[in-house]
């Protein structure tokens, strides 16, 4: 039972990390559809760094940097050059899929060491809970910390409120003197960093090798999770665990010989995403204030 819960948690952490970052970007009004690409770059960056430098912790740093670099590309085009955010995000994912495949070609077939678990003194000895909550790897702790910090940031700090104002009405925020483009740059790069970390988690914990397109749609599910969570940080945890559970259920089903074909089981996370979006989205048409009002709209600073 312990092992099952631990696997579910491990599966949900890349989603949790990537969705937290996307939430901040979207709260600032940037719809970043490049998450899948940023996760892939994070994964290949992390894998390469660990292979080259030997220490798994360098993988975390490399993953974050790769994500930020991709987010910078996205920001230059969408924020400074005011390109269409949907198309640019798609372009970034296509670009990063190609780039990571090319950069990762020499890495195929190699293996890296896992990111070590950190046991928290005494707490990790508590039966059941200790194993699950206090014997995790660094990125798992970071992911939970991030949700707490994001909640505090958005609700109780001035920069957080400014960020929300920028996302809700960039023209008003601009007229009282806030630097819209700078704030969106920072939010997008934070989102990219989180996506990079989420991507890094995959080779560092889940499968210690590199393969082309190894994120297999997790970036898109992360974007869906933000909608599912109605832009409320803690709900991302619920959503991520739910999807972790569904993903693992398919493997459990396969090993226990459920009479359902494996491909049908593998569809479950994707179908669940559609169902989750459907259940949640109807509410947005009744209550428009849930969605950041400037989401996806380029800010044009015309003189």
């Amino acid at each position, binding site marked *: 039972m312990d092992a099952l819960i631990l696997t579910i948690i491990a599966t949900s952490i890349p989603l949790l990390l990537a969705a937290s970052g996307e939430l901040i970007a979207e709260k600032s009004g940037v719809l970043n559809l490049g998450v899948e690409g940023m996760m892939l770059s994070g994964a290949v960056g992390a894998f390469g760094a660990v292979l080259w430098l030997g220490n798994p912790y360098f993988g975390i740093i490399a993953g974050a940097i790769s994500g930020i670099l991709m987010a910078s590309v996205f920001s230059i085009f969408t924020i400074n050059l*005011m390109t269409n955010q949907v198309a640019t995000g798609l*372009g970034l994912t296509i*670009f990063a899929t*190609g780039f990571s495949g*090319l950069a990762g070609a020499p890495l195929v077939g190699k293996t890296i060491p896992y990111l070590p678990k950190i046991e928290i003194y005494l707490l990790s000895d508590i039966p059941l809970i200790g194993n699950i909550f206090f014997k995790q790897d660094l990125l798992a702790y970071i992911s939970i910390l991030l949700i707490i910090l994001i909640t505090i940031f958005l609700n109780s700090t001035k920069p957080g409120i400014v960020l929300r104002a920028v996302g809700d009405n960039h023209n008003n925020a601009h007229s009282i003197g806030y630097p819209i483009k700078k704030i969106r740059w920072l939010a997008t790069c934070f989102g990219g960093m989180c996506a990079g970390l989420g991507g890094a988690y995959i080779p560092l914990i889940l499968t210690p090798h590199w393969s082309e397109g190894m994120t297999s749609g997790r970036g898109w599910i992360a974007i869906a999770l933000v909608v599912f969570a109605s832009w409320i940080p803690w709900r991302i945890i619920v959503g991520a665990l739910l999807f972790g559970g569904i993903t693992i259920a398919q493997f459990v089903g396969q090993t226990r010989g459920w009479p359902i074909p494996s491909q049908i089981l593998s*569809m479950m996370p994707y179908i669940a995403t559609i169902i989750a979006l459907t259940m949640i989205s109807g509410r947005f048409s009744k209550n428009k204030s849930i969605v950041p009002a400037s989401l996806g709209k380029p800010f044009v600073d015309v003189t």
Partner: protein
Amino acid sequence: MIVFTPRNKISKNWIFLAPILSIFLTVILGGFIFTFLGYNPGETLYHIFISPFTRIDRISDVFVKACPLIIIGTGLIFCFKANVWNIGAEGQFIIGALLAGSFGLLFPEMDTKFLLMIMLFIGFLGGALWAFIPAILKTKLNVNEILVSLMLVYVAMLLIDFVVRGPLRDPMSFGFPLTKAYPEGALINKIPIPGIGFLGQLHYGVMSIFILVPIAWVIINKTLLGFQIKVLGSAPKATSFAGFKEKRITIIVLLLSGGLAGIAGVIEVSANMGQLQPEISFGYGFTAIIVVFLGRLNPIGIILAGIIIATVKLGADNAQMAIGIPKVVTGLFEGILLFFLLTGETLQKYQIAWKKYGS
């Protein structure tokens, strides 16, 4: 600081110049990236951009490869013009081919000269059905069509994998995940050229471009529906003032694009494979998105754009065989190209000037 000023008039030349300039810049930047990753840029670029034009059969293969891209792209024009983001054409392509192929395989008694026509029709319905899911969810329940259409790509990939390995697997396939070969009437033949025989894989399916693209052009430019689509995309509020039904248009564009992707799927399998297999699309649905932007949402432009992108795809295959570069490298070029094209659209709308602070 950089200042953007809206242009009053859109320069006509820019519409043609922007894609050409974008391709040029993409090649240069691509060369730099190859150098950075330790590949010989000259050799790599030669294989990707020039080698597909070095033999006449290779040139005809460019058209074969461009065929699905152009057909899918033609459908996507309707969506993108209406600002509806169908990015699941890959899934609609697969479902169209899967349903049409299943029909051909399950009803061998239908093997007449009309079978292909029936299959193309089923392919259209299948693709449209797959696009109907995001369409109905978007219009009834306000669900984001980007995410739904994309999730359905994964579902479609798994579905065809299941069907080909399970119910429709040929018992005589020695364990390979393949269906039986299509009956004669379901196949699309290669075009015989007098005196030469066949030119690469050139097949009659390519002709469909010359039927579908003009139809699309007429719908977009000469019908009320085309006008409504353009209004919905450029001025959504005006749509309701004018009394157009926004939801109806949204559903129509999604069905049209899904249906065309389905037709593309049927043609691809009937012409090039002759049976169903787990992988029938190699990212055509995603690549078509780039084709649409490169073709500037114009049916005629898309033919040219499809040929250019198909060149890169074939070139990447050649590069993989010749110097071992993974063929995902096409994504690199497609992504960069899209970035430049989108920037071109900004430059078309705004004049850029450099101003000193405080002036």
